[in-house]
């Protein structure tokens, strides 16, 4: 196929698979952070994101994000993958079919990220509906603004791998979701502790691994900006980790493992928008400085009534915001070939970044708030208190993560029919 570069295509095939891995990795990370009775439900929200967002992406999401140069929204020319085939997009060197898949994995992980705000109480069915609508009404719109020819990218905003549609969108949507769905019934009354720190660490490690595809693939080739973003994805989270260690020591005299896992995520988020635009040295500074606001918000948030359970706002919203603004100061044309930031004499770049840092959170928050209010008017968003107390694994899925098998009576297919199914005791 003319215009297709085999090396670029090979790398992007791998990068796409790496990004898809991030969603189950996020499932592990989140599942470790909740109580054991909600392990499966928490992981299943990430699995659900893969199922739902892939289909909505193929149906209309991709088209609304990437068809045409409309200021606010793309067209429907590629709806149902019409015209998405082996030919590259304009100026691209990989088949559009692969570009579609790579971008689809971004939509999936973003939907999965929001689940962190509503775990341990949101109904699974309501989350499926929310995922479908959010992936189109919020993700596709913001992806169009930042990647697909919309007003931000056309105006000069630099966002390498998704500070706007992925990180700020998920973070500020998570805040709205936590406000609409409401706090867990035990929040603020009992200590609600992570049930498996090993899952959290393993999930964070796999997320970092996948992030090399996320950032390294966002140049869509094997050129300089991809290599820069790839290496910055190693450097930035490392300095975030070190600063996080220091902050932990100052507060509690001990470096915590779950803090370290969180720092890995925050570091990866910080470098996501900036990866291909800033030098390795600035990337290390970004990781170090950006740790501070996220750490502070996590420490502060638990003292509030807002049960944004797994701190998506602090880890993704805040760090994405910080990363987007950092580009405005320290972007360097000698590294990215596109534009300088304020520090190198181009104040206009900072203004473009400020626009994105204001518009994306505002749209994501308002749209998600309204969307959940509408869904909530049609169906209940939360499980009952009784179901919440018993755990969502049994109530929503009829399974347990840590089943012992003791006292379990095998039902043969014949007597299955005779047994009432009291998964939820009507009481």
């Amino acid at each position, binding site marked *: 196929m003319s215009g297709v570069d085999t090396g670029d295509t090979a790398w992007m095939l791998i990068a796409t698979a790496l990004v898809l891995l991030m969603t189950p990795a996020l499932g592990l990370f989140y599942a470790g952070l909740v109580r054991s009775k909600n392990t499966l439900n928490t992981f299943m929200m990430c699995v659900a994101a893969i199922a739902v967002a892939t289909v909505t992406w193929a149906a209309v999401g991709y088209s609304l994000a990437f068809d045409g140069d409309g200021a606010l929204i793309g067209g429907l020319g590629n709806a149902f993958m019409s015209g998405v085939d082996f030919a590259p997009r304009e100026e691209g060197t990989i088949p559009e079919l692969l570009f579609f898949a790579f971008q689809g994995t971004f939509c999936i992980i973003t939907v999965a990220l929001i689940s962190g705000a509503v775990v341990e109480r949101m109904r699974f069915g309501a989350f499926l509906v929310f995922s479908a609508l959010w992936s189109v009404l919020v993700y596709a719109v913001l992806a169009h603004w930042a990647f697909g020819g919309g007003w931000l990218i056309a105006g000069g905003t630099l966002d390498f791998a998704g500070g706007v549609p992925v990180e700020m969108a998920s973070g500020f949507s998570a805040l709205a979701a936590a406000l609409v769905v409401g706090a867990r019934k*035990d929040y603020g*009354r*009992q200590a609600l502790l992570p049930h498996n720190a090993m899952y959290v660490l393993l999930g964070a490690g796999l997320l970092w691994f996948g992030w090399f595809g996320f950032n390294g693939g966002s140049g869509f080739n094997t050129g300089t900006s991809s290599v820069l973003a790839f290496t910055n994805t190693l450097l930035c989270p490392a300095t975030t980790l070190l600063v996080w260690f220091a902050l932990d020591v100052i507060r509690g005299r001990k470096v915590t493992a779950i803090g370290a896992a969180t720092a890995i995520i925050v570091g990866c988020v910080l470098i996501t928008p900036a990866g291909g635009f800033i030098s390795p040295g600035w990337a290390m500074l970004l990781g170090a400085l950006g740790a501070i606001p996220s750490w502070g918000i996590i420490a502060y948030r638990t003292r509030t009534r807002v049960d944004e359970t797994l701190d998506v706002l602090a880890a993704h919203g805040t760090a994405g915001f910080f990363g987007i603004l950092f580009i405005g100061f320290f972007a360097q044309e000698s590294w990215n070939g596109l534009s300088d930031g304020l520090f190198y004499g181009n104040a206009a770049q900072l203004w473009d970044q400020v626009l994105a840092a204001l518009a994306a959170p505002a749209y994501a928050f308002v749209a998600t708030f309204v969307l959940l209010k509408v869904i909530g008017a049609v169906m209940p968003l939360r499980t009952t208190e*009784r179901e919440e*107390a*018993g755990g969502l694994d*049994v109530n929503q899925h*009829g*399974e*347990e993560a840590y*089943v*012992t098998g*003791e*006292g*379990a*009576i*095998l*039902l043969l297919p014949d007597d*299955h029919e005779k*047994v*009432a*199914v*009291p*998964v939820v*005791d009507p*009481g």
Partner: protein
Amino acid sequence: MKLVIGIVRPEQANQVLEALHRAEVRGFSMSRVQGHGGEMDRVETYRGTTVQMGLSEKVRFEVAVSDGFAQKTVDAICEGGRTGEVGDGKIFVVPLDHAVRIRTGDADEGAVTPVGK
């Protein structure tokens, strides 16, 4: 002396702890147990295997108290453990022959009275 054994829902365990604290019952042990009472069984499916789960997770409190404290302890476990639904658990009070505090060798009433009382 009495041994008060309270078997409650795991999700109510924290409320029971708080109620015991308010009743000034300071010494007790708790363990995770599985049990079956009058509650309906859960049906769960793991791939093709459908099972009826006959045992529910419960938390078992054991509190050794002097006679005068027995009713307060029972009341506290009831208050903390009750949701009003089938499956809230049971409390058993049994006589206790002898108790020893290992550190000091204190016996009986002295062993079940919290330090500093």
